[in-house]
């Protein structure tokens, strides 16, 4: 199901400007705050310190302590603050630092924020944005490295976005803040410093619209978040072997743009889904099921899923590296798909 509430307002700039992923997020947030006086930010060490990942650098200087609020370590109250303020017409951005900490405040997200509009008969909306950093790769171990998008995408009423690069980090952030629903932005920790071209003006990327990051005719690779970059790298590797893979970045995993995926499958007839999260019960399962429901007849091979093994994220770098899917495993998966039929 695709819901698009706005058109992208991206105008190409003359001289392309590179910005890091985290700075792109920061710029989008700042512009959204300028655009709407009702946007404020709350979280632990977001104001004075600018956030442990530098996500909120310099915002206190511009917006002051009325709109940049340092809170106690009280995630349930923090999200609840956002829910209540949103119900009264503000547009809160609350930061959960590491995604793993949603365990502490899941009730406020799942039972409160997500269901409020529904339970109030549509009389109010909860334009709450939750920002958080997900993913492994920093040796941060089992309680600071998870990708929990499947937990959230399962809950009706929440939107979940996973920016894969600087451009999408900015555009999805702006759209999330403008959106009238609770939206969780999963920034990826490993990508924070990675740079990409980012327009200077404010722009939104429609929530629920996938992006074809690379066109190809042989295999469709549907990649979430950081896996988009890995899939593109795998595509380069495979191109040298004469294999052309198409890379689809859903950008938003809830709502999920399946139409773009189906159209691609009709052309390539082979699909690999890859995400950082544990494979079992992950979004790969949902995507595979929807593909087989809708475009089964076009498939030349069963849909293949690549994700993490069914284990907490290990600490030791040698284990962590083996745990997280990478370009080599994606390329290998594509080769396997092509061997069939």
């Amino acid at each position, binding site marked *: 199901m695709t819901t698009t509430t706005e058109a992208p307002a991206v105008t190409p700039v003359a001289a392309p400007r590179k910005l890091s992923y985290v700075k792109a997020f920061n710029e989008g947030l700042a512009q959204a705050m300028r655009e709407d006086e009702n946007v404020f930010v709350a979280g632990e060490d977001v104001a004075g310190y600018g956030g442990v990942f530098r996500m909120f650098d310099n915002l206190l200087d511009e917006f002051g302590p009325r709109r940049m609020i340092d809170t106690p370590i009280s995630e349930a109250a923090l999200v609840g603050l956002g829910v209540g303020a949103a119900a009264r017409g503000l547009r809160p951005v609350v930061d959960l630092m590491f995604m793993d900490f949603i365990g502490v405040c899941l009730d406020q997200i799942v039972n409160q924020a997500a269901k409020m509009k529904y339970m109030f008969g549509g009389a109010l909306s909860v334009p709450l944005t939750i920002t958080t950093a997900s993913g492994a790769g920093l040796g941060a*171990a089992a309680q600071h490295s998870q990708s929990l998008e499947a937990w959230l995408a399962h809950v009706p009423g929440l939107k979940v976005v996973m920016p894969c690069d600087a451009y999408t980090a900015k555009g999805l952030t702006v759209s999330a803040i403008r959106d009238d629903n609770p939206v969780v932005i999963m920034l990826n920790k490993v990508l924070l410093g990675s740079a990409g071209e980012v327009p200077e003006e404010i722009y939104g990327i429609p929530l629920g619209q996938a992006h074809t990051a690379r066109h190809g005719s042989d295999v469709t690779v549907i990649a979430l978040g950081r896996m988009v970059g890995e899939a593109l790298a795998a595509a380069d590797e495979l191109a040298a072997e004469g294999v052309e893979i198409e890379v689809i970045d859903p950008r938003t995993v809830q709502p999920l743009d399946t139409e773009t995926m189906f159209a691609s499958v009709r052309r390539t007839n082979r699909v690999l889904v890859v995400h950082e999260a544990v494979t079992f019960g992950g979004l790969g399962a949902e995507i595979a099921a929807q593909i087989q429901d809708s475009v089964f007849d076009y498939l030349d091979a069963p849909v293949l899923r690549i994700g993490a093994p069914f284990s907490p994220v290990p*600490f030791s770098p040698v284990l962590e590296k083996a745990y997280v899917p990478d370009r080599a495993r994606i390329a290998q998966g594509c080769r396997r798909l092509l061997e069939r039929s």
Partner: protein
Amino acid sequence: MQIIKDLHERMVRIRLFETEAGKLMEAGKLPGFLHLYVGQEAVAAGVMAALRDDDQITSTHRGHGHAVAKGVGFREMYAELYGRVTGACLGRGGSMHINDLARGMLGANGIVGAGVPIAVGAAFAARYKGEDSVAVTFFGDGATNIGAWHEGANMAAILGLPVVFVCENNGYAEFTPQSGHMLLTDVADRAAAYGMPSVIVDGMDAVAVHRAAAEAVERARAGAGPMMIEAKTYRYFDHQGVKGLRHPYRSDEEVAEWKARDPIDLLEARAIADGTATRAELDDVWRRTRDEIAEAIAYAEASPLPDPADLLLNVYSG
């Protein structure tokens, strides 16, 4: 006095373990995060000297000091920091997850406040089984703003469980000073809300901490229920890592003031003044510990890495 020597040795072990770990981190040898405990040694030493091996503790993200003072070995601790298979968590956990069941170390914890209810559960188990062990939960000033802390405190109080709540109030939660995250001056005031007695101690004075802990532990062991100790202390290094402060969130003067009351210096001066130990004896503790640490680091570095083929190890039992 034997207790002074005991406290001294525990503090020196923490100090050296931590400073060496900091150096290894700076040298790029350790992956992940490192929340150093240096400055707060008197708290871990004072409390742990009042405990038995079968008493349980739950710790925090800043847990090395608690582990060392509870008797966890240097070898398995360094090996864990290095991500080796010989580590305390077989290389799976790293700095924030060190544990040792044999020593009653129920784990450091990456989730602020999460150890509090776990200690309550451990105390419940002791009473259930008719054992007289107690549980001690360590937490920072910042952690007392977490719901789990309040729920755990009330649960311990209402069930009358043998839990000792130890607040290591180092004045900061990450980069936010205490005044920026609660309106109280004394975190100990929070205990009163749950009908729990509390005491405030100088967290740089190991003897004072020890006295308070011994009393709280004895009370708990005797069935008189939970108690809270607030130790006012300080961390010397940054919240995470050794240095690299982006914004100065505390002044050099403030750091210097606390360092002037270094817990180890204070105890050494006292030991020498009252004739408990000579300088040479104290120096010998440092020397022996240094040797032990060098050996443990060499052991960790020589240890094998975990085998990726064992990725699913211990996800389930049986």
